[in-house]
């Protein structure tokens, strides 16, 4: 069904004059906002672009009054890839491509169940390319960093969290009290806890829970915690999807002679995941933003790298530039994703059923 055609509109000037006449108070408020914008915008433009310094090796290169983006450009390699060996940066690019290629099938309009298996394989492959896996020269996770790490943690953790989240959501809707109880307890405890405390636990407490002789590096420990954290949130998104599948669908499938598992796999889950997709994407956006927290346990993601930069004597006092840059990078990704998620919500809505 196509939306009704909008009424032909009057020219903008006419509408504005009408609005002014009808609602003088609104017009005054609008004028105030416009004046404020006209006052702020040029100053902001001057600071961020016109009077800004773009290159330089120390703070001495910065001009007064404008932003000094040299703090970012002089360290672009760290900002992108942390302290990864200089001659092996191609591996970072390759790993990023593998990750994106692994996620792409999940984002297609009709996701096949196969993508749920190939995506984790892609994450492991990306890990292998970065780490070396015995084939390439070894680069332990201590050397990883920069924006690549935010991508790796965000995408990698989500990919592993999705199947776990689906399982937890199914467990939560189970009629078996033990299964349901365990899943509810896990989901509610995780969702009630701040991520930062769980990350501290991964850094400080987790080594106490691994047997003597077995050590996991800090990034792996943090990854495991983030996967469990994200799984609990994805479980709630999937649960919403499961609740949105009409009961008649299950009854019809059972009436056609499908057993319980086939009903679940071929009838309920495809519809539930379709309904849950926008919520899952939003949950991913949240996780991606949260990856900037990882620096509190000493992992040098994009925030950690720039935080180190601003404590460097050569760059002191440029906190605003450093963090505004990170905010802008994340804004581009998250805004794009949220737009895409909103359009997905419209396209994926099941015809004839209001959300």
């Amino acid at each position: 069904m196509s939306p009704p055609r909008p009424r032909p509109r009057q020219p903008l000037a006419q509408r504005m004059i009408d609005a002014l006449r009808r609602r003088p108070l609104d017009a005054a408020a609008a004028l105030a906002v416009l004046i404020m914008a006209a006052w702020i915008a040029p100053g902001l433009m001057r600071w961020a672009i016109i009077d800004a310094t773009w290159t330089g090796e120390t703070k001495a290169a910065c001009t007064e009054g404008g932003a000094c983006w040299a703090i970012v450009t002089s360290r672009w390699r760290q900002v992108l890839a942390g302290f990864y060996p200089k001659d092996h940066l191609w591996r970072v690019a390759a790993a990023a491509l593998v990750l994106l290629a692994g996620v792409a099938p999940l984002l297609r309009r009709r996701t096949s169940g196969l993508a749920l298996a190939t995506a984790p394989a892609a994450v492991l492959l990306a890990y292998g390319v970065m780490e070396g896996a015995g084939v390439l020269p070894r680069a332990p996770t201590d050397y990883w960093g920069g924006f690549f790490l935010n991508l790796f943690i965000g995408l990698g953790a989500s990919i592993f969290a999705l199947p776990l989240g689906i399982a937890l959501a199914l467990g939560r809707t189970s009629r078996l009290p033990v299964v349901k109880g365990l899943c509810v307890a896990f989901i509610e405890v995780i969702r009630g806890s701040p991520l930062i405390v769980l990350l501290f636990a991964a850094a400080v407490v987790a080594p106490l829970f691994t047997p003597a002789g077995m050590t996991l590096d800090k990034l792996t420990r943090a990854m495991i915690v983030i996967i469990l954290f994200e799984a609990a949130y994805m479980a709630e998104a999937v649960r919403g999807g499961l609740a949105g599948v009409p009961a008649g669908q299950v009854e019809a499938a059972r009436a056609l002679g499908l057993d319980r598992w086939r009903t679940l796999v071929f009838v309920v889950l495809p519809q539930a995941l379709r309904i849950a997709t926008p919520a899952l994407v939003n949950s991913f956006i949240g996780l991606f933003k949260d990856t900037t927290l990882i620096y509190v346990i000493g992992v040098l993601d994009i925030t950690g790298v720039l935080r180190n930069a601003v404590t460097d004597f050569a760059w002191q006092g440029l906190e605003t530039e450093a963090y505004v840059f990170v905010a802008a990078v994340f804004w581009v990704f998250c805004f794009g994703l949220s737009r895409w998620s909103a359009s997905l919500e419209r396209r994926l809505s099941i015809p004839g059923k209001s959300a």
Partner: protein
Amino acid sequence: MRRPSKRASFTKGELIIQAVMLAAAVLVIWALAATALANLRARGMASGFEFLERPAGFQIAQSWIAYDPVDSHARVFLVGALNTLSVAAAGIVLATVIGVVAGVARRARSLVARGAASVYVEVARNTPLPIQLLVWYALITAAPPPRAALALGDAIFLTNRGLHLPSLTTAAPAWVLFFILGALGVGSALVLWALTARGATRHRRFVLKGAVVLGLAILGLAIRGVSLPHRTGFGFEGGLEVSPPLLSLLAALTFYTGGYIAEIVRGGLASVDRGQGEAAAALGLSPLQTVRLVTLPQALRVMAPPMVSQYLNLLKNSSLAVVVGYPDLVAVFGGTSLNQTGQAIETLGLVLVFFVAVSLTLSWAVNSWSRRQQRWSVR
């Protein structure tokens, strides 16, 4: 909805699955506990909760209750928990105000208002909160020094050492905090009830007014006077001083959560059928009455559950205080106490118990409220 019968019956297979899962869960927990105990013993580390009684030995920059370094770690927990709750309460109030304004503006007729609100919402929701916090902190510490303070009238001053506000001097700050926290909880419950419950309106209004008068009276008894900040040689004295860490934390929590609340408010208002407002207008209700008696009560039913979940997010996000050095529960107990005692499992465990307990209590309250509302919802 299918209701499970009182006595559920399971097939043999289902019983086996449950037994296996229960056994696996117990086994995993037991194995983890055993490993941890063995590791602790091997490293000669202490365990147990005796450390709570020991003196903490460190200063805390801000406290609502009397605190001294000779006080125990248990007291540190209390100081931190009160700091967390107070910053969360202030953030919730501020974020709700900003969020409601922005949410209403996004549905305004004026293009400019809609545009400004959209820009705000998209920036607030699509940038990471830790980064917003760092930007706010950088901006506040870049404010002029006290001798060149930015002043609003002769009462509010912003310097790189924080914000100075006029304040009420009270008999006991901790009790005032308890009172405000309690009043916030009881007050919001009363408002929800008054707006959405059915029954005798006059009776309800009477209870509501009574509660407000009683609250103000109790608060009035505790107030001793008004204190204005004034310049001294090196800074300011008197009034309320909001330190840069607290100010940036509040600003970031408010800015970020306000964006999410704006979307909830917009969605809630959009969920009310337009015919409802038109019908109310046709019956001769004024625009204000229409909103108060018809639109808002219906929107609130949709908005309350996601709002509470945003409030809980704000509470959890207040733990980012560590980033700027505000002494919240995570920073003082999960940070300094942990470092002093080395008992990571116990300290972080208690911190998690605090957050999970608050979250479960609040979400249980809102769930039972919204279940009651659903019974009355119009289909």
